[in-house]
Structure formats: structure tokens, C-alpha cells
């Protein structure tokens, strides 16, 4: 592994909250500082942005079980194209990743096929069925970085509190999905004028707050480390703020789709806009964007969920939920910057620094000693998205034909250029 000197770069440093023109030196896969270096390969960044690679918590790679929707190889290529250097993968596969044996399979496949870091999460309960605890200790030893049943709420609070008690004793992170499970059953949209006019079964946005309220109480009761995967409503934010102020070990994320789209985007029953939880009102969207800017919401994720055409070409109520996002996360997030809601270091705090910290990783920083996981991008370059040019096997993006700004120009994982290969192979 050689030496690289990135010159003439607009360095985006979320740790210091600064951006400045300068250079960055890398040796043996790690950042060594900003100074010059003899004999290094020189990358002229042309004044474009160089930032820590994105750490994306909650990526679904459909292996095992649904490899026709997405494989480690295709997801890895999408990640590189989107400047995501670490995928934290979800266990909602078929079967669920709930034993060390399945986790071992995932790690092996990931190492073989994906050019970026893959950190697997494991199920909190067996089969994600919410009845019996998964082998949290074994799974931790096998390399699980967090435990989650994904979009299935562990409805039985007794089971959930035992899981969190056990998890707390091992110091592992539990990721929850905040929804009152019975109230939200069968819902395809958020209650309101739009859902009612379209005749869609809907759930009150209050169901998210109810779910968060319960989880906060269980976290307080058990002392577990907890992260809410997606907080998407203004009503829940006040509870989040209070819980953080009370000193609980609790953080929250949000998907890029809830930050950039609202319920009206569904339009004439467009199923690529069906996600879980459903898209919210514009008021909620704005509130959540502001919460990211203020730091109340810690993490932005793509919530990358591949679905094939067959799962989506159905009446809205029957269609599968979820949207792909690995490759569109960066340009979509640039809307928050161009819209004047936050600057680039603040955005990168949520895309890279905070998720790294929450998982105890060294990434997300530009300081000496940090891994050289880097993304070079032009924040302004405009383009119209063509979903068939995305690297994911599934093409279910809500941004098809959308005008976007922000292009990835380069991507390095531990100092290795993974971006140039992408062009050569495709």
C-alpha cells in the first residue's frame, strides 16, 4: 500500500466542523496529516470536496435469500458510486441473520464480493419474530456490530425489555423501529388529507411517538445502548430531545427519503414512493431536516431496500415497501445543503462522523490516524437521474428522472482507489 497526496482539495471535516482548501496525505491506508510527502502518488482534486466516506447504517443487501434483488457485489458497486465506504447491513434477509452460522456466510460473501467495508448487524430476536432472544453473545463474537429486528417492532414489551437487559450487559447497540405496531398495521400512508382523498389505509403520525415513548421507557429501565432507526415526525422529536437531555444512551437516525420527499410525492399511487414508515407531511419533513441541522437527529441513512419490479408493480396497498438509496444518498442529501438548511460539515456529521462514533469505528474523520476512507465529489454538478444506470440490481428509486446536484468523482477505501475499477468494469 503506497502513499497518496490529495492536493487542491476542499476538505470537509465534520469533526472540527470546518471546510478549507488544502491537501491530505495518506500512507498505508491511513490519513497521516495535511503536510506534503516525498514520492507519493499525487491526486489533484481540482478544488472539489474531499470528505470522509459515508457510513450507511441500515443497508439491505438481499443475500441470503433474494440475490436477484441485490447481491454484495451489486450493492458494493452502488456504494462506491455513491461515496459510501462502509455499509452497515440489515439482518432482514431470508433467512434472517440470527445465528453465527448465517452471519459467517454473510461476512464471507461480503469479503469476496464487496469493494467497501461491510459491517453486518444481526437480528435481536430469532427469525425477527419477537418471541425469543437471538444468540446475542455468539453473534457479537462473530462480528455483529448492532442488533435489530429492522422494521418489525418487538411488540411484546416483556421480550423487548429482556433483550435490552441482556444487550446492556454485553454493551451492544440495539437499533429499534419506532411504531405502535397494532395502530400501524396495514397502513400504507400517513393519515391526513392526502391519504384520505386517495382512499389509502393510513396511520396517524402519533404512532411513531408512541413507539418511541415505549422504547425510551425500556431504555431507561434497562440501561441499554439504543438507536432509533428512523425518526420522521415532529411529534416524536420533542420526546427524543427530552430523553437525550435526561442522559439516556440514545441516538436517532432518519432516512434520506423522509428528508427530501413528502406524502404528496406518492401522487397517483406511485409505489416507488412507498416506504416504511410512510412519507410524512411537509411540516414533518421540515421539522426533521431542522433536527438534523441542530444535531438532535444524529444519523442520516439511505435505508437502502432493493425491490424488484414485480414487488412494486402492484396496487399501492399490496406493493412492497422500500426504496434503494446507496447511490443517490449523496446527491439527494446535497438538496439539504443547496436548500440552505445546513453546511457540508454539518451534513457529513450525520452521514459519516456520528454513525462511526455510534458504532465505535475510527472512520468519519480527516485527522491523522483515521482510516483513509474518502470520497471526492463535486457538490454542484447537475444531472438528471436515470434509474437504469444505477448499479443496484433493483431499480426502485423514487428519484428516477429527478434533477439532482452532486456527483461522486472518486472513492477510496483504506487508501485504495475503488472508484476507477467501477468505471473499468461497467
Amino acid at each position, binding site marked *: 500500500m503506497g502513499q497518496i497526496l490529495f492536493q487542491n482539495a476542499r476538505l470537509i471535516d465534520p469533526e472540527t466542523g470546518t471546510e478549507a482548501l488544502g491537501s491530505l496525505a495518506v500512507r498505508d491506508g491511513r490519513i497521516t496529516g495535511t503536510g506534503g510527502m516525498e514520492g507519493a502518488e499525487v491526486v489533484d482534486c481540482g478544488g472539489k470536496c474531499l470528505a470522509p466516506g459515508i457510513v450507511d447504517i441500515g443497508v439491505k443487501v438481499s443475500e441470503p435469500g433474494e440475490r436477484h434483488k441485490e447481491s454484495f457485489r451489486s450493492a458494493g458497486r452502488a456504494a462506491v458510486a455513491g461515496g459510501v465506504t462502509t455499509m452497515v447491513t440489515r439482518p432482514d434477509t431470508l433467512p434472517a441473520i440470527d445465528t453465527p452460522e448465517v452471519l459467517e456466510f454473510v461476512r464471507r460473501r461480503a469479503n469476496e464480493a464487496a469493494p467497501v467495508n461491510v459491517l453486518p448487524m444481526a437480528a435481536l430476536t430469532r427469525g425477527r419474530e419477537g418471541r425469543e432472544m437471538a444468540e446475542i453473545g455468539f453473534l457479537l463474537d462473530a462480528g455483529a456490530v448492532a442488533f435489530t429486528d429492522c422494521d418489525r417492532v418487538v411488540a411484546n414489551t416483556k421480550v423487548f425489555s429482556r433483550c435490552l437487559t441482556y444487550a446492556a450487559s454485553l454493551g451492544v447497540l440495539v437499533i429499534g423501529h419506532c411504531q405502535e405496531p397494532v395502530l400501524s398495521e396495514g397502513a400504507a400512508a400517513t*393519515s391526513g388529507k392526502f391519504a*384520505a382523498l386517495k*382512499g389509502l389505509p393510513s396511520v396517524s403520525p402519533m404512532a411513531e411517538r408512541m413507539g418511541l415513548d415505549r422504547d425510551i421507557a425500556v431504555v431507561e429501565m434497562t440501561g441499554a445502548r439504543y438507536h432509533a432507526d428512523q425518526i420522521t415526525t415532529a411529534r416524536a422529536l420533542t420526546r427524543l430531545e427530552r430523553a437525550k437531555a435526561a442522559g439516556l444512551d440514545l441516538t436517532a437516525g432518519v432516512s434520506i427519503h423522509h428528508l427530501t420527499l413528502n406524502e404528496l410525492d406518492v401522487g397517483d399511487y406511485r409505489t416507488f414512493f412507498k416506504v416504511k414508515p410512510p412519507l410524512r407531511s411537509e411540516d414533518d419533513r421540515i421539522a426533521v431536516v431542522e433536527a438534523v441541522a441542530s444535531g438532535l437527529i444524529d444519523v442520516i441513512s439511505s435505508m437502502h431496500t432493493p425491490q424488484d419490479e414485480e414487488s412494486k*408493480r402492484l*396496487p399501492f396497498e399490496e406493493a412492497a415497501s422500500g426504496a434503494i438509496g446507496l447511490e443517490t444518498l449523496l446527491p439527494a442529501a446535497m438538496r439539504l445543503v443547496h436548500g440552505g438548511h445546513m453546511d457540508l460539515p454539518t451534513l457529513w456529521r450525520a452521514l459519516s462522523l456520528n454513525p462511526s462514533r455510534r458504532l465505535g469505528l475510527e472512520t468519519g474523520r480527516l485527522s491523522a490516524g483515521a482510516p483513509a476512507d474518502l470520497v471526492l465529489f463535486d457538490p454542484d454538478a447537475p444531472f438528471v437521474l436515470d434509474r437504469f444506470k444505477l448499479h443496484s440490481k433493483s431499480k426502485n428509486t423514487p428519484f428516477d428522472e429527478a434533477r439532482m446536484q452532486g456527483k461522486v468523482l472518486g472513492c477510496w477505501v483504506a487508501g485504495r482507489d475503488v472508484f476507477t475499477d467501477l468505471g473499468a468494469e461497467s
Partner: protein
Amino acid sequence: MSFRARHLLGIEHLAPDEITTILDLAESYAELNRSDIKHGDALKGLTQINMFFEASTRTQASFELAGKRLGADVMNMALGASSLKKGETLIDTALTLNAMHPDLLVVRHPHSGAVSLLSQKVNCAVLNAGDGRHEHPTQALLDALTIRRAKGRLHRLTVAICGDIAHSRVARSNIHLLGKMENRVRLVAPPTLMPSQASEWGVEVYGSMDEGLKDADVVMMLRLQKERMDGAFIPSEREYFHRFGLDAEKLAHAKPDAIVMHPGPMNRGVEIDGTIADDINRSVIQDQVEMGVAVRMAAMDLLARNLKAARAGEGVLV
């Protein structure tokens, strides 16, 4: 002629003059239907397929009769049981039928938006005969024609729509239509059967029949589905009838010449008192059924004209 659409999927996107065009033509078909020889040839040689993914006797019969009176070859397909159970998707079913070259596809489906989805995959005209809780456009049109004939106009009337608004596609289509024609629309329902933000629809929202019916010109009752009666949305059938069922006492709050409507089939003694339903001075429920055939003849006639024009390369379709 101002109706230029390719499909009839809902009232929401129709313009007032398009609605008037359909109603005017339906008026002439109402006359035809009362004559001895009830035959037209507007659909002669065309194939009409009725696809009902949800059981229906009345609407399907009405569409079938409308098509036959205009000379179409009509085929009925009840799909609730067969293909869906075999795992065939809606799109596959549509493509299969499309290969048989139908000209008019009449579709009812239990899910909102399903008929619109299907219309994107076929190259014939599609009529929505009810999709989930979304729209039931021919019902709103036949209601409008019934009102226009009974009241002599279809504007500046006060119309109270009462009952299970939340789950009703009939209510949604009527709210669109009556609003477009500049009527005052009131919704009357218990809060569990009222959509959460109905007041934002440009209608007046009431929780009591006495207030909601006050000085109304038209009282439109909705059917309450059996499965919603006991405990889930309302405490009981008898409490619902007591508070929201239409009887003579409640109707007395409306104008003396107010008409009573119901899309059928009725639950007598639940949402409507039998004597009111049968009162020939107030109830226009039988007229609704009669106008249903006429309106469907008109809608299919107009769609067939647009289809033929499009096939002739006139490119009028929007």
C-alpha cells in the same frame, strides 16, 4: 363534445363541462330506456369485459345491461376467486385480457389505485367501477343525474352525505363532483367513520344528523358494511340507527322537499328506516338505479367515440 379522456378513472380530474356532457347524453339514454325498443348501436361490434375483483351484483348488472343495450359483446369475469388465488398479479391478468382485444374494460378492485394501475397497461378504454376507498365515478354521475332531474338543477344545492364516509368511494366521488358543480356539501358521520382531516376538503363536517341535515336539499345515505358494525367503529347497530340512521324525525330537519338517496344495497333499520326508503314522495332510490344504466351507457358511448377517434389517428387522447 368536451369529454376527451381515454379512461374514466375518477371524478377528481374531470372538468365541470365534461360532467355536463356525460349527464346530457345520459338524459337521452334515459329516454331510450323507457321506450319499447331499448336499443342503440353506439357500441356495436365492440367488446366489453367486466372485470370484478370484488363481488358485485347491482353494479355489474347495470354495466352489463348498459353495454348490451348499446350493442356491445359483453363478457363478465368474476376474478375474486380464481386468478388471484392462483397467484396471478393484476398486471398479468390485464395483459392476458388485453391480448383478447377488448374495447372497454370495466373494473372493480378492492384496492385504491388498482384500476389506474391497470389502465396504464392496456390499450383499450378503462372504466373504474370502484377501486378500494378511492373513487366510484359512475355512481357519482348517476347520483348527479338523479339530483338534476329531481331538483331541476345541479348547482347551489345543499347536499348532506351521511354515514361511513371514511371507507366510502361513493362519498369521495360525490364530494368531488358536487364540489365541482358548486354545491354546498356537508358530511355527517360519527368521528370513527369520518376521515381525519375531512374539513380540509372544502366541505362542512357535522357530528349530528339534526345539524347536518338542517335545510338540506338532498340527503345522501351511505351503506354501513356489516363488518364495521359491532364494536370496531361503532358500539352497535341499534345505537348507530338511533344516532345516525335516517328516520322521519331526522329528515324533518331537511327542507320539506328534500330528496333521499342511497347507493344500495340498503341495510334497512341500520342506516335508513324502511318507510323512508319506500316513501315515493321523498326517496329517489329507484331512480338512482334507473339512471345508473343511462349514465353507464353515456360514459361507455363517449369513451368508445374517443377510442375510435384515437385509433383513426386523430390523437385526441389526453
